[in-house]
C-alpha cells in the first residue's frame, strides 16, 4: 500500500518524508486551500522528491475553459518530461498525454464520476491511477480496490460540489456587501439542518466540501487498496503530521486501531460508507 498526500506548504516539506506520492498545488489545482507553488518552488520540491525517493504529482485537476487551453498546455509542456505524475480531471489532459504516449503519468481525480470496478478497469488498462468516488459503501470500495491503480481517499475533507460560479462573490454583490470572499474558508448551513459545510471560493470557481473528514482506517485491512490518499485541506499542520504518521504506521504494522486519529480531531464522519444511497 502506498500513501499519497498533498503538500500544505514548503515550510512543512520534511513532514512528508515517509509518503510515496506528493501532490503539488498549482494555479490549476482544484479545491486546494494551499497556496499554489511557483515554478522555482516546484523545482525545489522536485529536487526534494528525488532525494527522498518520493514521486511528485503536479496537481492540475481543475476543468479547463477553452480560452485558457493554450496557456495550460504551455504549463504542462514545462513539466511533461520530468519524472513526475499529473493529477487531472479534464479530458484535455488525457488527450495531451495520450498524444505523447504517456498516459501512465496520469492520476484521474473526478471522484464523483468513478463509482464502479469497470470504470476503474478502463483507467487501469491505460496505466492511469484513479481516485474513487467517496459516495461508495465499504463493500463497493473493496470491490473496486481489487483493480490495480485504484486510490482510496482515507482521510480528510472532500469536494461535494464544484462550480464555475463564484457563488460567494455573487451573493456579496447581490447584497451590495464589501467582503472579499475569495481564498477564505466559510461555512454553509441549510436552514433546516445543523451540519456546517465548508465552502471555499477561488478565482472562477467554488467548491463545497463534506461536512466532516472522511475516516477510513481499520477498514483498510479489508479493502487493501494499492494507494491511499490523505487530503490535507484545512487541516492544522501539526494535526496533519500526526495523522500522516499514523497512516504510515498502519501501512507498516497494520491498521489496527483508529482511536488515536479520532483523538487528534473528532470532526470525522463515515460518510456513506455504511449506508446504501437511494435513487429516489
Amino acid at each position, binding site marked *: 500500500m502506498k500513501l499519497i498526500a498533498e503538500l500544505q506548504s514548503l515550510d512543512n516539506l520534511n513532514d512528508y518524508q515517509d509518503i510515496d506520492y506528493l501532490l503539488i498545488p498549482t494555479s490549476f489545482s482544484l479545491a486546494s486551500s494551499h497556496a499554489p507553488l511557483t515554478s522555482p518552488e516546484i523545482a525545489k520540491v522536485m529536487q526534494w522528491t528525488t532525494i527522498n525517493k518520493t514521486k511528485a504529482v503536479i496537481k492540475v485537476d481543475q476543468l479547463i475553459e477553452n480560452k485558457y487551453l493554450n496557456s495550460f498546455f504551455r504549463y504542462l509542456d514545462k513539466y511533461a518530461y520530468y519524472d513526475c505524475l499529473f493529477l487531472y480531471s479534464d479530458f484535455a489532459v488525457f488527450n495531451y498525454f495520450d498524444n505523447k504516449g504517456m498516459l501512465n503519468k496520469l492520476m484521474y481525480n473526478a471522484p464523483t464520476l468513478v463509482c464502479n470496478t469497470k470504470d476503474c478497469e478502463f483507467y487501469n488498462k491505460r496505466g492511469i491511477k484513479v481516485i474513487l468516488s467517496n*459516495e461508495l459503501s465499504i463493500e463497493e470500495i473493496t470491490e473496486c480496490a481489487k483493480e490495480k491503480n485504484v486510490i482510496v481517499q482515507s482521510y480528510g475533507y472532500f469536494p461535494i460540489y464544484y462550480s464555475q460560479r463564484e457563488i460567494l462573490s455573487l451573493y456579496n454583490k447581490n447584497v451590495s456587501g464589501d467582503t472579499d470572499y475569495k481564498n477564505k474558508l466559510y461555512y454553509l448551513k441549510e436552514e433546516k439542518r445543523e451540519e*456546517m459545510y465548508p465552502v471555499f471560493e477561488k478565482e472562477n470557481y467554488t467548491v463545497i466540501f463534506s461536512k466532516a473528514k472522511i475516516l477510513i482506517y481499520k477498514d483498510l485491512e479489508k479493502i487493501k487498496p494499492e494507494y491511499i490518499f490523505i487530503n490535507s485541506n484545512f487541516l492544522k499542520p501539526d494535526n496533519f503530521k500526526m495523522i500522516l504518521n499514523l497512516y504510515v504506521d498502519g501501512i507498516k504494522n497494520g491498521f489496527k486501531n483508529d482511536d488515536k486519529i479520532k483523538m487528534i480531531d473528532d470532526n470525522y464522519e463515515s460518510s456513506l460508507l455504511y449506508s446504501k444511497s437511494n435513487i429516489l
Partner: protein
Amino acid sequence: MLIQDIKQIELLAPAGDLNKLKVAINYGANAVYVGGYKFSLRARANNFTLEDLKEACLFAHHHRAKLYVTMNIIPHDSDLEGLVEYLQYLESIKVDAIIVSSMYIIATAREVAPKLEIHISTQTSNINSEACNAFLKLGANRVVLGREASLVDIKSIKKNTKASLEVFIHGGMCSSYSGRCVLSNHMVNRDANRGGCAHSCRWSYDLYDDENNKLNNEGFFHMASKDLMAVEMVSKLIDIGVDSLKIEGRMKSEYYIATVVKSYRILIDRIYNNKKSNLEEIKREIKKAENRETGYGFFYGHMSLNGQLYASCEIPSKEFVGKVLKYNLFTKIVTLEQRNYFKIGDTLEFFGPKRKNKLFCVKEIKNDKGDCLATACHPQEIIKLKIPFYVKRGNFIRLAKIR
C-alpha cells in the same frame, strides 16, 4: 442551393414519456432524447419500457426525427447488470444514439452495438476542444458541451474538433458543473448521479465565517441558477456551426414541451429562410410555460449577478388551462380536459403545431353531463365549450391574458 439542401441545425427536445415524445416531434423537434428504466438519469420521469422505446423509435423515424436514449448515470457495479443486452436491444430497434457518461459504457457500446452513435453527456463537463478530441478518439461521435462554455469558447471548440457538438439552449441549469455535485447524496442520501438529485442547490442556507458569525443577516443565502433561455444565441450558434440545440427537461409537461419546441422551431426556420424574428415576442411566448426566471447562462462568459437566483422562487404556471380531446364539426363543440382554472369571460388561446394561435372568449362552460358552470375549477374535469373555429385533438389551451 435550395433551403432544404442545407444541413440544418438539429432541434433536440426532451420527452419523459411517449405522449411527450409525440408532442415534441409534432411541434417541430428534429430529435428527441428519452430515458429507459435503466441507466437513465431522471429516476422520477416516467421513463420508457423496452416496448415504449420501440414505439418511440418507429414514431420518430416515421416523422423523420431521431431518437436518442440517455444512459448517463454514473453507474455503481450493481447498476451494470444487463448492460450488454440493453445496448444490443437499442441497436436492434434502430435507436440513433445513446447519451453516455461512463467510460465503461462507452467502451462496451463500441464493442457490442457498433451501429449506435455515442454522444458524451454533459455530466462529464467538457468545455474545451481537446476534451472533445479525447472522446472522439475513444469512440464518441458527439459531445454535449458543458453549459459553462461561452459563445467565444464554443466557436473556438468548433474550429478545433471534428466532434459533432450539442449545446444546451433552454431549461434548468445545475448550479455546479453537471456531475460534480453530490450535495444530495450527503444531505438526504439520494444519489444525484443516479437520478436522485434532490435539488439541494435550490434550498435556503445560512452563511458563516470561520468564527461562527452568521453573515446573511437579511434573508437566506442562495446559490441556485436561473434557467437558461438562449433565444438571442440561436442565430449565433447556427453561424458557428453547432450541430444540435438542446432543450432540457424530461420532467416537464407536454404543454411546456409544445410551447418551447414550437417557439424555437419557428425561430430556427425563420433564420434559415432569412426572415427576421421578433425575439421579444418569442421570449414572451416561451415565458408562458416557464415557472422560473431565465437568464443567458454562460454564453457571454462567467456567470454574472443576474444569472443567479437570490430567493427560493418557483412561479407556478397557471396559464395552461386544458387540452383538446375532440371537436365536433357539426355542433362546433370542443371537448377538453381541464388542467387549470378558467371562468366565463376569460379569453382562451388555442394552439397547435402548425397553425396560428386562435383566440376565443368564453361565454358558456358545460361539464360532461351538460350542466352549465360558472368556472372550470377541477383539474382533469371534462369540459365542453362551443367555439366557432376548428381545433385538433391534442391542441393546447391557455389563458390569453393573465388575470
